């Protein structure tokens, strides 16, 4: 927001009565700036909380990483602590962590012996592919179902959608994943049960990190088909779960719009139903629905933790679980930071969107 600089208003005469400060003249810029500062603080808070929590664990990471013999030898323990920077006092560890963060250095994982940054870079696309696929499918279905249900409020369809979405988010994801795996992979053998590709395939050359898209870009149709087959079951679990939440929300959002006078007016004018739906209802409901979809992304990532465990998906969820149970401090910090940033960025965009669309918000 370069416009936020005081020099941006040369035509303005400061001597005029009630001279405005720049932030009074550009409330939107001020709003953006404040949100930005809050977001950065929030991310810093995330690192602090993860760091404090992981250091509260009443155990030494060396215990989890070293064998019985090595742990009995003080030299080995010392070497381990030096390698992972655990020999410094705890506050200093945090300071040096922040220092390294500036260079995008997230430290080294005690489990994979890789740089956490590299681990995240290879694990995140896996989760993202799963989550985005599930979210896109769920969002499209949810808008269609939610709209249909709201337009025919009280009909059989509405009731079915309503009960269906309640069932959707009442299902324990980990259990559903298990049942789906048992039936469609173990018993029927229709779909592969674990991983992202069959072993005979090598991952396509990485561009987006999404195997499906990368395979298409590289023209490897067989790899693409295999990647899709692997994606079906875990994505189905996540879709079912997300669909419940989103459908309910879409239905409510549309119902709220329907209650507005301008919709009634448009209908009274004799506009065709489809035109009213498209031009008035969908447009008005789009913003809340889109933001809800954005916010659901974070919860889909959560759902992925349990789903990935069952389907051995090799994404962030599995990485986080392994890191948490083996006290891989740097890895836990890395995952916390990544998810925190995603959440904060999504929220930031949502807030911005609201600020732009609804002037009342920024004036508050």
């Amino acid at each position, binding site marked *: 927001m370069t416009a936020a600089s005081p020099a941006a208003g040369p035509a303005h005469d400061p001597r005029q009565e009630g001279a405005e400060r720049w932030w009074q003249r550009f409330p939107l810029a001020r709003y953006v700036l404040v949100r930005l500062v809050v977001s950065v603080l929030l991310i810093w808070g995330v690192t602090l909380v993860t760091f404090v929590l992981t250091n509260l664990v009443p155990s*030494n990471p060396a215990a989890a990483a070293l064998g019985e013999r090595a742990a*009995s030898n003080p030299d080995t323990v010392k070497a*381990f602590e*030096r390698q992972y920077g655990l020999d410094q006092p705890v506050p200093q560890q945090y300071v040096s962590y922040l220092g390294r963060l500036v260079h995008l250095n997230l430290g080294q994982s005690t489990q994979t012996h890789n740089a956490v940054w590299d681990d995240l870079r290879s694990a995140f696309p896996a989760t993202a592919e799963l989550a985005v696929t599930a979210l896109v499918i769920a969002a499209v279905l949810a808008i269609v179902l939610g709209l249909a249900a709201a337009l025919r409020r009280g009909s059989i369809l509405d009731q079915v959608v309503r009960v269906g979405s309640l069932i959707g988010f009442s299902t324990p994801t980990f259990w559903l994943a298990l049942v789906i795996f048992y039936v469609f992979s173990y018993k029927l053998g229709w779909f592969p049960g674990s*991983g992202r590709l069959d072993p*005979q395939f*090598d991952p396509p050359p990485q561009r987006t990190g999404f195997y499906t898209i990368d395979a298409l870009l590289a023209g490897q149709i067989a790899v693409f*088909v295999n990647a899709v087959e692997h994606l079906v079951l875990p994505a189905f679990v996540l879709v079912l779960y997300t669909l419940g939440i989103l459908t309910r929300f879409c239905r409510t959002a549309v119902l709220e719009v329907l209650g507005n006078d301008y919709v009634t007016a448009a209908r009274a004018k004799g506009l065709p139903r489809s035109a009213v739906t498209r031009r008035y209802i969908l447009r008005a409901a789009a913003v809340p629905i889109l933001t809800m979809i954005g916010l659901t992304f974070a919860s889909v990532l959560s759902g992925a933790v349990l789903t990935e465990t069952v389907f051995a998906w*090799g994404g962030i969820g599995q990485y986080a679980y392994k890191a948490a*149970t083996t006290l891989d401090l740097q890895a836990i910090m890395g995952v916390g930071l990544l998810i925190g940033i995603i959440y904060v960025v999504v929220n930031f965009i949502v807030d911005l969107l609201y600020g732009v669309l609804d002037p009342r918000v920024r004036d508050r």
Partner: protein
Amino acid sequence: MKRLLTTIVAAGLAMPAFVACGGSSSGGGGGSTLVVDDQFDLKSVDPAREFEFTGNLITHQLYETALTFKGSDVKKPVPGICDYTMSFDNKVLTLKVTGKHTFSDGSPVTADDIVFSYQRVQGIAGNPSFLLDGVTVKKVDDKTVTLTSKDPNPQLPFILPNPSLGIVNSKVLQKNGGSTTAKDSAEQFLNKNSQGSGPYMIDTYDVQNKVVLKANPKYAGTKPAYDRIVIQNVQASSQKVNIQGGKTQMALSLGPDQVKGLDASKTQTIKGASTTTIYLWFNMTPAYGKAASNVKFVQAMRHAVDYNALLKLAGDGSVQPGGMVPVTFLGALKSDPNNSYDPAKARQLLAQSGYKGEPISILYSNDVGFGLDDQAQAIQAQVKKVGINLKLNPQPSATSLDAFRSGKSQAGLAYWGADFPDPADYLVFAPGQSLAKRAAWTAAQAPTSTQLATAAGQASGDQARDAAYQKLQQQLNVEGPWIPLFQPVDLLVAATSVKGVALNPLWTVDFGSLTK
């Protein structure tokens, strides 16, 4: 659905066989791919740093060791890169390079490489460093190396086959950050470019998902039957699906319950005695052990546990050893009446111990397999019948190990996997030694056991050692805090098309010796 998608691909592209299933499609130069499913505990494939099951499995295929074991026999070390002679006092072991051995870059394996590899393991101070504790490595000439130990070290020939002691190409490694000090930084390089003289070399390495090995063209031995090995990280449940569907040729993580009902016409199940001992332990210092620190109480426990029921739970092929040393090793105790199910005797001993039914907290790791959760619950139910009240305390190994190693926990259920197939690995259970410290058991508390342990460590010659270790274990079963429960069974499921599979407790399987 699956079939539909596959048909579309086949029809639309008329693809050549991109699937190279072992045995079925051996077209071309006779090589083919072997796909192996494993549940990874992988951290590294740098021999000097890895000390995990998956790490051993992979490293063994990449690096030859000075001495090795053949097939599943771990009772007799045989020449690998070297032949060996041991001095009379078991202190000086001389290695002599025999035959032709070449690294994957074509250069020959020399004494320099052996010295560098061993000193690197020592200098890095990592998990496997203890293997060569107290050993001085010295080059004599281009083909000869001596390993001199401070104390008699009759177990050294059994230690050298460990995959962590694989011989690396010292010249290449030194150019890529390799060093024999803590400054060594060659791990990342080795994870991508293996530098060994084994039948395989690293093709691709993804520590979390998949490791691919390719045949080493410069390998001096017999060319392996499979020229590509894919080892992938897969949950046990999917491993069963994969091997039954013919997608993979080996499953390494199936348990005894899970191999039931496998199609015998398509798969073979190979069983081996594992070298892991599952045992109960009790803190012998009253401040921490409370009621459990009483020897009579431990003895009562020895007779309260129904070992056969535990074996049934652990699955066919599991065995109860007489002492901590696995039954297949030298010095093993086949059985000991001190560890036998006898509720009447247990009640009697319990009465003598003065135990009043206070809860005994049993610490164990609930994420390490071996069915510890089930075993702990079974033991709890069994000993309750004689009036012993156990309270289970399961934790992820990250916290349970630390609690265990503090030496302040009351009691627990734990496992010990042999680091090398020799009873000397079990001296840590003698009073005052590293494991005994976990149970706060000191030499002063048990002078007889201490004496027997010293004698066992110094004994020379197979017969004398055998007798000395048995005697030690019998004494441990009287006054010690350990109750050896069982050795689980090692299982490997392979497609029938894969021949010559031998299950080795150290590195699971040798891919180079497989046939078709």
